């Protein structure tokens, strides 16, 4: 199946589901108009959603994604404690700066989730992305190393392996 067609089908179904969640499903008028509006939305924006083919099976990807969420929550707790320690420390031992890290991901959605995860974890913040060179620029509240590989190990690799399973 062509990517665009697949994307449109996904958007159509999702739009219908959202419409039914918003409205009263028992009314036939709502259902008919919902289908018409979902078709319109699909026609206008349907081809945006999916742009690349995934290799993994959907079920396997979903399981990996749930696992990823757990891992993300764990990393989040760790990072929170770390930053809290920095904040309450009387000397305020911070060393802010921007570092560059490498990533092996090359799908748009994977990079987006990675960088958003990095941003959401306290202490690190994605400033910019260079997809062609597979690099991320991270603002780090406490720069431990300026070496690219070590920084990648410290920041990116926590998430990257699972994300590969989910999105690649």
């Amino acid at each position: 199946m062509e990517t665009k067609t697949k994307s449109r089908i996904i958007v159509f179904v999702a739009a219908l589901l959202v419409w039914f969640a918003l409205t009263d499903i028992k009314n036939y008028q709502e259902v008919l108009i919902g289908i018409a509006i979902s078709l319109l939305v699909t026609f206008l924006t349907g081809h945006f959603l999916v742009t690349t083919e995934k290799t993994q099976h959907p079920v396997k990807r979903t399981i990996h994604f749930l696992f990823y969420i757990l891992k993300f929550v764990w990393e989040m707790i760790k990072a929170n404690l770390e930053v809290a320690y920095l904040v309450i420390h009387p000397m305020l031992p911070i060393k802010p700066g921007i570092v560059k890290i490498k990533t092996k991901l090359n799908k748009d959605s994977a990079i987006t989730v990675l960088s958003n995860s990095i941003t959401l974890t306290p202490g690190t913040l994605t400033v910019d992305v260079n997809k062609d060179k597979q690099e991320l620029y991270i603002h780090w509240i406490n720069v431990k190393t300026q070496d690219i590989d070590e920084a990648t190990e410290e920041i990116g690799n926590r998430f990257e392996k699972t994300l590969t399973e989910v999105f690649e």
Partner: protein
Amino acid sequence: MQQNDGMTLIVKTVTRISVWMILLYGIYIIFHGHLSPGGGFAGGVIIALALLNVLLAFGRKFTSEWLNISFLHDLESASATLFLVIGILGISLGGAFLANFMNKGELFALLSAGTILTLNIFIGIKVGMSLFLVVWVLAGSKIVKGE
């Protein structure tokens, strides 16, 4: 989707994922204007925001390939004209300008309240298109040095 047109990859991806939802929500607000809070203006603004999201994330070139800008302009004028046409139909069918001459239907049904739904749709299109075009024009004006 070039890297250097529009904003970064993150914004682009999130826009790709979310734009259909914003658009759908805008249309939902327009269609339920006579039943719940919202209506033509609010829904039109949300639709304009969906389009503007794409404009901001992907840049002018991509957007002008996606949407036919002159068609949007025609749509805007046409919906304004149709609004007036319904108003004038009110004179001949309902006895006064903008009179509600259509069947009022049943309370809380989607197709009810006569002309209000139609007017809401036209207002929504008009507002959405005008707001998008305003930003389109303002963002497109190049600042030229001096006179």
